[in-house]
């Protein structure tokens, strides 16, 4: 077993453990904090995969913005957070069954696929993923349309969210 495999296994177990805590913890602030550690684990996975840009963006966007937003939202809807009633709905066993079946099905499908044991080629020297990404994102032959549409999507989300949550008619 090489060093890289050990790093991967440690990170994967840490991430999955945190992910399990996210879906089972009763205290929602704790669930959000466990989400942060899951997301950090995923960021480390990107780093292991040499996707440096994705790794930092994961930390900046998910931990720096989305997790903060979750914590704010939990604190704004505080009454139910301390509700000590069951945090799982009555069909939770069905959800668990479906999740296990999904995992089993995916595992079964992956088993029969030939590309599975593929190993990665070395990254060519002097290859700058970020510059390449910049090239692709603005060249008309590649992904300029998704790039601009993403901007429109986010502005639409902003407008919608602001309108829904803080409609002046609904009180404050």
């Amino acid at each position: 077993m090489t060093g890289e495999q050990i790093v991967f296994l440690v990170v994967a177990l840490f991430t999955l453990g945190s992910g399990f805590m996210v879906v089972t913890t009763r205290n929602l602030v704790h669930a959000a904090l466990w989400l942060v550690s899951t997301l950090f684990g995923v960021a480390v996975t990107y780093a292991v995969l040499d996707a440096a840009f994705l790794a930092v963006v994961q930390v900046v966007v998910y931990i720096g913005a989305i997790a903060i937003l979750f914590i704010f939202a939990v604190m704004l809807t505080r009454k139910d957070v301390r509700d000590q009633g069951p945090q799982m709905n009555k069909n939770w066993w069905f959800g668990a069954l479906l999740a296990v079946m999904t995992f089993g099905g995916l595992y079964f499908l992956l088993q029969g696929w030939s590309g599975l044991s593929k190993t990665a080629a070395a990254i060519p020297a002097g290859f700058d993923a970020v510059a390449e990404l910049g090239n692709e994102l603005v060249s008309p032959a590649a992904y300029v349309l998704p790039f601009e549409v993403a901007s429109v999507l986010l502005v639409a989300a902003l407008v919608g969210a602001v309108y829904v949550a803080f409609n002046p008619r609904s009180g404050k």
Partner: protein
Amino acid sequence: MSFWNDPLKVAADWLLGVFTGWGMPEMAANILIGFLGVLLLITVLMVLDIFLVWIERKVVARFQDRLGPNRVGPFGLIQPFADIIKLIIKEDTTPGGADKVVYNIAPMLSMMSVLILWAIVPLAPTILGVDLNIGALYLIAAGAIGTLSIIMAGWSSNNKFALIGAFRQVAVMVSFEVPMLTMLLIPTIFAGSMGMSTIIEKQDVWYVFLAPLAAVIFLIAAIAELGRAPFDMAEGESELVSGFNIEYSGMKFGMFYAGELLHAFTFGGFLAILFFGGYRFFGLEQVSPFLAIAVIVFKAFIGYWIIMWVKYTLLRIRIDHMLAFNWKFLTPLAFSLLMVVALMNALLANAPIWLYISGMFLSNVAVAWAALEIARSVSRREREKVEGPKQVVEVGH
């Protein structure tokens, strides 16, 4: 002689020889050497941090026409060590009802978020931690961890003041992150890379001459990110007692305090790297890496001193004014500056260097002037709406 030119490599090679001589595999030896180097750097930083306490207290004393610490040791130099001994042997109380695990993790994360920033600081052409090609974003990523530590501290303390302070501080930090990100784009455009060492190498002309307005906005956003006056909403002694760290005592409080000081110094360093040429000073860095380190530390101290100067001169701003300042003035200004710089960069791409520099400089000045004019006319209109036009007052006499 070679140690004088490239101390890091010489030391690493020597250590590699020693470790492999003990029968260690080369990979493990390299990681161990990296670990020792990181440990050395961070230890030096912590010692520096101790002296930052002394410097900060001396400087604030001078600003307030006092002497500052002068009893323990010459010029009070031993004072910070006495403070540390006190912090260590002080009883560490945990408030009842606190969320113990989160409460204990928060100060560690706060300190860590500052220390990891030094991974990307190039101290000299040959002495740098890691030359990540996403350096500028790494700076923001470390800040995200700091933001998280504040909200964890505020929430887990089970104290109203702490939670309100944390919320305010986080709102301010995240808001000012937008102009900061935008201003990080400008050195990135000039250098064509996000890596800190590339940004320094490309700075034949300091970027502060190309984009003075960007340097000013970055400084403002950095001060807000640090949570220092005039943006110290979290502390707000008169309203919130001490903000998010109110329930912390002993060494855990010390971590927040030392982290804040080191953070300020680190941002002084980043200001120097991004806009003032980093370790470069008229070819001095070519003479010896040690001189390069001296140059960058000196520049970082100047940046730190400016941050202190602002802190002890200005008053705290009310939170609504502060957020309005960010979203209604600084963010639009930052985005317009970014658009102007990108456009000028494309238009002047083939121009001679003097035209490029003066064009950039003048466009920055023009943007700043226009922004201030608009702000002035808007604020005049606001004032007239509240007070009524000037003439009416005189007629009423």
